[in-house]
């Protein structure tokens, strides 16, 4: 049973436009959410996070929105750049037990010039 879902395997966007990556979750106990970016043959790098007590967190071109009632979060990248082309993973943490993260399957973003 997938608790963190990224329903779009891929997304194509033109340079300069907005990229919106979506993530849905089913476990209402999740209290912390993260986005990671991964280039081929490299490890994931942390991008941005949000606590469940907030609905928005912004860092430069990256903004994460959290809608707790819909159990949905999204990552907005504005403006998109070709260097943003990568796989983006959504992850969520439950406060129960140990500090493990549950990851989605990822969305491959392609930003074309």
């Amino acid at each position, binding site marked *: 049973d997938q608790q963190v879902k990224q329903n779009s395997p891929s997304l194509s966007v033109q340079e300069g436009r907005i990229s919106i990556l979506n993530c849905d979750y089913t476990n209402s106990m999740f209290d912390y959410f993260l986005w990671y970016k991964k280039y081929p043959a490299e490890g994931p790098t942390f991008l941005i*996070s949000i606590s469940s007590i907030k609905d928005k967190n912004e860092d430069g071109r990256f903004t994460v929105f959290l809608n707790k009632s819909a159990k949905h979060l999204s990552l907005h990248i504005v403006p998109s750049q070709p260097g943003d082309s990568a796989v983006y993973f959504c992850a969520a943490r439950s406060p129960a037990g140990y*500090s*493990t993260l549950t990851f989605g399957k990822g969305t491959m973003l392609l930003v074309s010039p």
Partner: protein
Amino acid sequence: DVKVTQSSRYLVKRTGEKVFLECVQDMDHENMFWYRQDPGLGLRLIYFSYDVKMKEKGDIPEGYSVSREKKERFSLILESASTNQTSMYLCASSFSLAGGQETQYFGPGTRLLVL
């Protein structure tokens, strides 16, 4: 800067071999993790450790074991490698923070091919 290093970037092994993957972090993190990443399946947690000599099973521990003799080092062991263990293996580490809102930092990964 947090640094997580993995002993090999690429490995080729034969079926039945014992395989050791090493991970070292230099930030005095309490928690360390091993994941595998496969196309269409995302990152799946194999094992993790929250202290020296402590280990916990993740979602897919079968066919693997781990060792954490020192705080900075976490080893993943494939006791008898099989072709279905061909994958990208990723190590991560994190602090234990009050409230649990810590970030995991990943190594570059080891791409393992089992023939």
